[in-house]
């Protein structure tokens, strides 16, 4: 009896308090600006601010100014939930750009689904997320690996060793490697899953030598990767065994890795700073002007830049920032001339068709692009997830 009264009063109070009038269009951003993951978070946030500045400088969106509500999730998962709710309940955002790890996406996705607000996840990841409100602008594991494994088997040979972190990104990537290896007549001769806390790679290096692979797919995360690559090179294996990766360089590991260890490493990603296109030149010019040239731009940052522009294009097309028409516009297959080539939203899967680049590390802490695969489709996601025909689908597909 008491509770009903309370709930009643709450409903009354909240209805009075909800702010209805806003002149600007607000978008939310939750990134790890502090804490262990800020290597990525700061760049993602920088890219978002740059994109918003770019749009506002070009006359805003539908005549309104874009305003960013930014939150620092401090590399803590509980902060994601908290700020996601805050953004919905207090700040009345029209779209959300957030998250780096898969767990951060999974933590907040239901909140935006319930609030019916488009949510853009801009990071390379294991793939398979399927949700009406969620849009992924990073590349998925299968998207990158499909071209990388084929290329690497041709270049190095058919024996593959997989070295991956022991969580979803690693295990799912390992699945795809196995699959594409089989498709290309190669085999996985060994794999090792590592805890995220590992800093000492000698056990792995022993196992790699025992398996005698032609190349290693190295997927550790962040600073761990540089440690592995240094030890790999210092053990004298670099000249005998190739190293390819889908996430090397995604957190600027190439800056940390010494030139001896970094030269000749193969990475495949949706973006490298050395991509040669007028869009990229313009983009990097803006970036350097605002943030300096000290730290190279990572693919996650470009994914955010793309996400904001794609959303903005959808708003323009829908003529409003309201969620339902914007999502419909996004599903119509919007394209954008991005720094990394033309990217296109797949209406069914909410993932991006985009270029995948294969690049080789040089001795200047940078990359030379050696091959470009244009317009690679997120085929696994397209196959599993069709939100146009089945809009109620909510699932995280895993192979």
């Amino acid at each position, binding site marked *: 009896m008491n509770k009903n009264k309370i709930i009643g009063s709450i409903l009354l109070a909240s209805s009075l308090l909800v702010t209805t009038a806003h002149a600007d269009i607000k978008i939310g951003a939750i990134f790890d600006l*502090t*804490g*262990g993951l*800020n*290597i990525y978070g*700061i760049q993602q946030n920088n890219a978002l601010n740059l994109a918003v500045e770019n749009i506002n400088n070009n006359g805003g969106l539908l005549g309104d100014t874009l305003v960013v509500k930014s939150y620092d999730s401090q590399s803590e998962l509980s902060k994601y939930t908290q700020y996601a709710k805050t953004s919905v309940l207090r700040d009345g955002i029209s779209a959300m750009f957030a998250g780096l790890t898969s767990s951060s996406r999974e933590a907040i996705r239901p909140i935006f689904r319930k609030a019916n607000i488009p949510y853009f996840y801009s990071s390379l990841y294991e793939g398979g997320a399927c949700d009406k409100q969620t849009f992924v602008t990073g590349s998925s594991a299968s998207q990158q690996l499909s071209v990388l494994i084929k290329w690497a088997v041709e270049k190095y040979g058919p024996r593959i060793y997989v070295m991956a972190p*022991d969580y979803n990104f690693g295990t799912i990537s390992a699945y795809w490697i196995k699959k594409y290896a089989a498709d290309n007549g190669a085999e996985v001769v060994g794999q*090792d*899953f*590592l*805890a995220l*806390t*590992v*800093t*000492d790679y*000698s*056990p*792995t*290096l*022993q*196992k790699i*030598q*025992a398996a005698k692979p032609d190349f290693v797919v190295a997927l550790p995360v962040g*600073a761990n990767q*540089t*440690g592995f690559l*240094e*030890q790999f*090179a*210092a*053990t*004298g*294996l670099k000249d005998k065994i190739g190293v390819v990766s889908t996430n090397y360089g995604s*957190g*600027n590991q190439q*800056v*940390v*890795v*010494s*030139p*001896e*260890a970094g030269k000749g490493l193969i990475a495949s990603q949706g973006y490298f700073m050395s991509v040669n296109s007028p869009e990229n030149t313009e983009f990097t010019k803006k970036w350097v002007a605002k943030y300096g040239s*000290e*730290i190279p731009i990572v693919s996650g940052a470009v994914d955010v830049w793309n996400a904001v522009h794609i959303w903005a294009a959808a708003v323009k097309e829908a003529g409003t920032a309201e969620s339902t028409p914007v999502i419909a516009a996004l599903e119509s297959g919007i394209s954008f001339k991005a720094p990394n080539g033309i990217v296109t939203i797949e209406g069914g899967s909410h993932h991006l068709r985009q270029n995948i680049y294969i690049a080789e590390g040089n001795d200047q*802490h940078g990359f030379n692009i050696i091959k470009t695969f244009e317009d690679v489709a997120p085929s696994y996601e397209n196959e599993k997830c069709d939100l146009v025909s089945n809009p109620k689908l909510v699932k995280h597909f895993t192979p």
Partner: protein
Amino acid sequence: MELDYLASVLVSSLSSASILLIATIGLAVVFGLMGVINLAHGEFLMIGAYSALTVTQLGLPYVLSIPVAVLVTMAIGAIVEVLIISRLYGRIFDTMLATWGLSMVLYQLAVLIFGTVSPGIGMPQYNIQIGDYNLAGYPLLMIVVAIAMLVFVYLLMTKTIYGMKARASIQEPEMAQAIGIDSTRTNTLTFAVGCGLAGFAGAVLLPIVPATPSMGFAFVIKSFLTVVVAGPVTLTGSALAAIGLGGGSSITASFMTSVAGDVFFFLVTAIILWLYPLGISAKWRHKL
């Protein structure tokens, strides 16, 4: 299993244990000798690494950067002891919380000063061969470094007047004062030495573990468990615990998975604490 594989696993596990030991010795001095749980130990390691990195970036040779790292961390350690630790002796859990706060502050300061991405200095491209297997030379060098550190700390603590004063101040603080030892200053110095050792570890491990603001975190938990398992005979106990836990977990990782290695580490720690509630060395008759 082939013999050369086995041998290379053993040698590399020994080097893993040595790396753990190098990161632990400073903590062993501070916790084992002073009874202070310094949760900021990892951040002192990080400070050492960044000091060394900065010096090499200024163009000085890497070897020269190591003493600089030691001096910097010792100085910071001394300041921390005077401002915070000295007020909390005997309040072991309060010290733990205060040093945790300190670790957050140091971490964030490192982010502000150095940013999140700094170039590494790379590992010397030298390796040795056992049968069909290559081993990187620098991590193997760490075995020598760990032994050298052990010998150094042993000599410092047993053969110098300071070392004797430090141990006396900690074993019987009142009697130490009653025979004229200024235990306040001695304790400041001992804490600084512990931090200096952490700084040394950070500098010497820099080629293996690149400097990042969060690098200390990877070490502090395992180092800490190692020291607790070691018990009162700090130095020998830590060496043994590091070989047993670090080496054992590395061997487990070699034959199984790295997660199994981690689980081995924590599980064995729990079992040892169950069997030896005061640490493995509780009943030994050794000085250190």
